[in-house]
């Protein structure tokens, strides 16, 4: 990084959310952007994910529609920043009982009404799309807009594009305090002070701590997910399999379903890994003989009501926040909308459902 200390925009957090915002800001010719991160990109949540770009079944339906808008931006993003292995595989969410089929029918109906392309598949249709899937399947919901991306390549290409746009990065630099003096933010870090007119909090799990520096309460929770990685196998899982798994383009299968509250404990635990193995084999019986190469775990950041926190922070002028689960799915849309908000004070798609102010209204 250079020796500049004054910026127009500082973004704290260099994950898929922070980098997506930096990319769209700089693509719209915003100058003088600094991105700060306490570690190196991919060391947090953005680097420990199956990286689905997932739409159908999200609740409420308006939020599913919001994620669909983001999925639709991926092809253009890939055209601009380079190969990120985005694959619109279609998403299959299987079920194994008649009771679940009733739930699935309801979901298909209400999501269709909300503008999400989703349909119910019979057992035969599932097995036609996924010939190696368990014969015990009863049916599935399916949407052609679901898919996945390579999160490592996504971050790499974002960072390279941002550097080409003269965005400055400061990695391994933890923020130790933030205050506001004479209308400007002063960001105190391990590597000295930086000032900015506008500040964006996009620190994922750490956004709660960042908000506290400015007396802003950020209601988010930490939820661990554990994942099994197999050896590379010939391509045999063709879709993204909702709730459970996908096959990477280079061959390994990723399996994981778990959601645990374990603070910031990123260890793998044998009980969950055993259960994950069992479900993987229940879905694709041929996986039984596949070798496991590794397990990993990641900590999701989930706002307390389950939907994103995006937009301005009303009590602090020129302060913006973007913190959410499903950061990979939402990255292109969040980048687009937050950059519009920061530069033009308006957004092309409404974000009123996602304002942080909704939490303070509840407590009144």
């Amino acid at each position, binding site marked *: 990084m250079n020796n500049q200390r004054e910026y127009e925009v500082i973004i704290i957090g260099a994950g898929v959310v922070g980098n997506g915002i930096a990319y769209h800001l700089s693509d719209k010719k915003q100058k003088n952007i600094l991105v700060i991160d306490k570690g*190196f990109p*991919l*060391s947090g949540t953005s*680097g420990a994910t*199956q*990286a*689905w770009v*997932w739409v159908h*079944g*999200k*609740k409420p339906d308006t939020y599913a529609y919001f994620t669909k808008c983001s999925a639709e931006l991926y092809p253009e993003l890939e055209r601009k920043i380079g190969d990120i292995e985005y694959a619109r595989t279609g998403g299959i*969410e*299987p*079920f*194994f*009982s008649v009771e*679940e089929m009733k739930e*699935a029918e309801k979901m298909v109906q209400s999501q269709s009404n909300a503008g999400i392309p989703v349909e119910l598949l019979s057992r035969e249709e599932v097995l036609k799309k996924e010939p190696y899937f*368990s014969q*015990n399947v009863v049916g599935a919901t399916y949407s052609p807009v679901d898919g996945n991306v390579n999160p*490592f390549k996504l*971050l*790499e290409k974002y*960072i390279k594009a941002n550097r080409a746009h003269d965005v400055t*990065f400061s*990695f*391994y630099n933890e923020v130790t305090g933030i205050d506001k003096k004479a209308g400007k933010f002063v960001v105190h870090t391990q590597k000295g002070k930086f000032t900015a007119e506008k500040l964006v909090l996009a620190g994922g799990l750490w956004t709660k701590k960042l908000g506290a520096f400015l007396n802003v309460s950020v209601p988010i929770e930490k939820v661990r*997910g554990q994942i*099994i990685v*197999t050896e590379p196998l010939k391509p045999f899982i063709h879709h993204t399999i*909702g*709730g*459970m798994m996908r096959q990477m383009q*280079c061959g390994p299968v990723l399996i994981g*379903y778990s*959601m645990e509250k374990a603070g910031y404990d990123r260890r*793998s635990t*044998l009980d969950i*890994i*055993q*259960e994950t*193995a*069992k*479900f*993987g*084999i*229940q*879905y694709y019986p041929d*996986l*039984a*003989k596949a*070798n*496991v*190469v*590794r*397990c*990993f775990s990641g900590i999701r950041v989930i706002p307390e009501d389950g939907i994103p926190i995006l937009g301005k922070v009303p009590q602090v002028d020129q302060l913006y926040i973007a913190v959410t689960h*499903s950061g*990979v*799915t939402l990255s292109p849309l969040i980048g687009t909308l937050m950059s519009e908000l920061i530069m033009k004070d308006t957004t092309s798609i409404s974000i009123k459902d996602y304002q942080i102010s909704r939490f303070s209204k509840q407590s009144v």
Partner: protein
Amino acid sequence: MNEETIICPCEDVTYSDLESVLSLGAETFDDVKRFTRCGMGSCQAKACFYQVSKLISKRKQIPLSKIPYTHMRLPLRMIPLESLLGEDKEKPVKTSLSEGHANE
């Protein structure tokens, strides 16, 4: 060693791939691993860890002994998925519809 020298034989990662991520500011083996897949393959960094660490040490002017080891995870060597099956094989299949949504 030249640009095309393969450092990670499992994932075909070359010397120039490593240079590219070191120039972005990577400081540990795991930083390099996530950007390049170096060490993510079947040997889980047993073959490449030392080579990569030497390179980081030289580039960042830090002693080799100060470079943290890669994060070890189970299993230590490859095992078949079925060997992880527990005792109670009768559990119903978990799905998002039965369990609430876990989709990323």
